[in-house]
């Protein structure tokens, strides 16, 4: 699509803003961001400090007063909750989430790259229909297929096995990857491909040696977007796993059931659960909009 952000970080947008707009932007952004800040702050508190009002969110190390005697809005930070969460076996959940995300990303890559290439360069009849076929699978609500998926996975003895998540996350991210990669491939000058074809390179060599190196940033962004969705995924995790294959969101549920009243521990678990994706998203934020709009908005 022709729409493209005109300029980059320094440039885009209208002329230097009046002070009022700058202040409003900062204030509103801080309000919207506050729950995240408060979550992280709470993760660094003792349980007693976690429920102190007025809310405290400024860590003040080195002062050891009762939570209610601290200066306004401050608390004495501690890492004890993180230690507790790690002792409760958070690690394996984290590891399984990583396995599910990385393995599904690899399968997505293997399936999506050739497909996106063929569709971007219109190597098949009905390439448009194929693209829309993929997008329509993305819009199929998971609840529309969960019952047979559950039964089939059960019959395959894959219930509570990470392979079940690998299968579903691949299907979930495949359409996004194909649409995104296609939009990156289309930016490659046709001359490059023409030249390579004249040289007689076969199509897989062409893709792996010439095309992929040219779209490395796009490829990375595509993987990031898929990883974000897979890491945060909950519905298939809660439907298809129980203990042996349970991922990070499942840790959160188990924790709520047993110790939901301990907010500081809950916050520590939540902070560790969200952090990888938040950081990945910050890094990939320039490409986020392209991924979310399936390559339609660049």
């Amino acid at each position, binding site marked *: 699509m022709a*729409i493209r952000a005109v300029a980059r970080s320094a440039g885009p*947008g209208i002329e230097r803003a009046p002070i009022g*707009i700058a202040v409003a932007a900062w204030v509103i952004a801080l309000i919207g961001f*506050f*729950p995240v800040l408060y979550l992280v702050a709470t993760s660094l508190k003792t349980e007693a400090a976690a429920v102190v009002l007025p809310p405290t969110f400024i860590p003040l190390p080195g002062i050891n007063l009762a939570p209610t005697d601290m200066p306004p809005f401050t608390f004495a930070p501690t890492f004890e909750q993180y230690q507790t969460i790690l002792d409760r076996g958070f690690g394996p959940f984290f590891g399984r989430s990583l396995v599910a995300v990385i393995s599904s990303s690899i399968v997505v890559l293997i399936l999506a790259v050739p497909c996106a290439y063929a569709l971007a360069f219109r190597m098949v009849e009905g390439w448009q229909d194929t693209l829309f076929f993929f997008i329509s699978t993305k819009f199929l609500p998971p609840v529309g297929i969960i019952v047979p998926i559950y039964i089939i996975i059960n019959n395959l003895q894959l219930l509570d096995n990470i392979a079940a998540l690998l299968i579903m996350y691949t299907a979930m991210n495949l359409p996004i990857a194909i649409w995104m990669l296609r*939009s990156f491939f289309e930016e490659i000058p046709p001359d490059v491909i023409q030249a390579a*074809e004249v040289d007689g390179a076969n199509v897989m060599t062409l893709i792996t040696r010439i095309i992929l190196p040219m779209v490395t940033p796009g490829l990375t962004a595509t993987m990031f977007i898929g990883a974000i969705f897979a890491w945060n995924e909950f519905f298939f995790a809660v439907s298809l796993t129980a203990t042996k294959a349970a991922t990070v969101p499942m840790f959160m549920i188990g924790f709520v059931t047993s110790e939901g009243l301990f907010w500081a521990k809950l916050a520590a678990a939540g902070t560790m659960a969200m952090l990888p994706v938040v950081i990945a998203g910050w890094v990939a934020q320039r490409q986020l909009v392209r991924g979310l709009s399936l390559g*339609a*908005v660049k």
Partner: protein
Amino acid sequence: MATMTLARRRVPALPFVGALSNWSTGKTLIAPAVIYAIIVTQLPFVVTVWYSLLRWNLLRPDNVQFAGLDNYLFVITADPVFFPALINTLILTVGSVVAALVFGMLFAELVNHRYPGRGVVRTMFITPFLIMPVVSALTWKNMMLNPVFGVVDYLMQLVGLPAVDWLAQFPLVAIAGIVVWRWAPFMMLILLAGMQSLSDEIREAARMDGISGIQEFRFIVLPHLSRFIQLGSLLGSVYIVQEFDSIYMTTQGGPGTSSTNLPFLIYQVAFAKKDVGEASAVGVMVVILTIIATRYLLRILSRLSEEA
């Protein structure tokens, strides 16, 4: 889901296609992905349709019968939860999409100016979208909306308002709030791309002609953004219709059925009641509703990608 066949449009043949590439290479390249998607998404849906015609409860596994449309009839005429869930789904989806668009527009406008720390502001705005939904639901349920220790109620009492147990008294509003918090950044990103594709000259020229800020927004920015608004609202609807995580983590559909939406209903019927037939029937109906919305969405996506 059914393949949407779109009117094929004339596409200028790219010069390099046809010389050495050929259709059969292309087919080989797309086949693995297409087959995978068919097996994992399309065939299960066909099976869902078949299951929806069966009387089959996993608690009585040896008693499976063909039931025709009984499951659909039961859901529509006798199930006390289906219509409340349908209405909750519509309210939650439409309400959240509209509110997320309004906030997204505001955020985008605020980020589309130059001032110190704009990158930080933008990063703060998009963060809620990145937070694991399970975690954001828990954060809101406990630290923000708890009637005794929550920040929101603390602030309300500070200005003299009575304490409200949001998730018990206004569960749908509270859940919509959590959903909007998550999706407004998504709308912001799409609308911001739209705003940045509007040339500064046009806005400046209009301003030199002496129009007010509101007029500028109403007659220049908004019309330019209409396609982006359509794209955002349709993508948003397709995702928010499927909302499950925040309901599961906060209210479990309650109190009663007051915050049960269709996906959560299906989850309950399938995994608590273990009624395969009924869960499948509701699933089929959700898919049909989504197809109706999606057809419209696909038309817009194809119009956008055509301009590529």
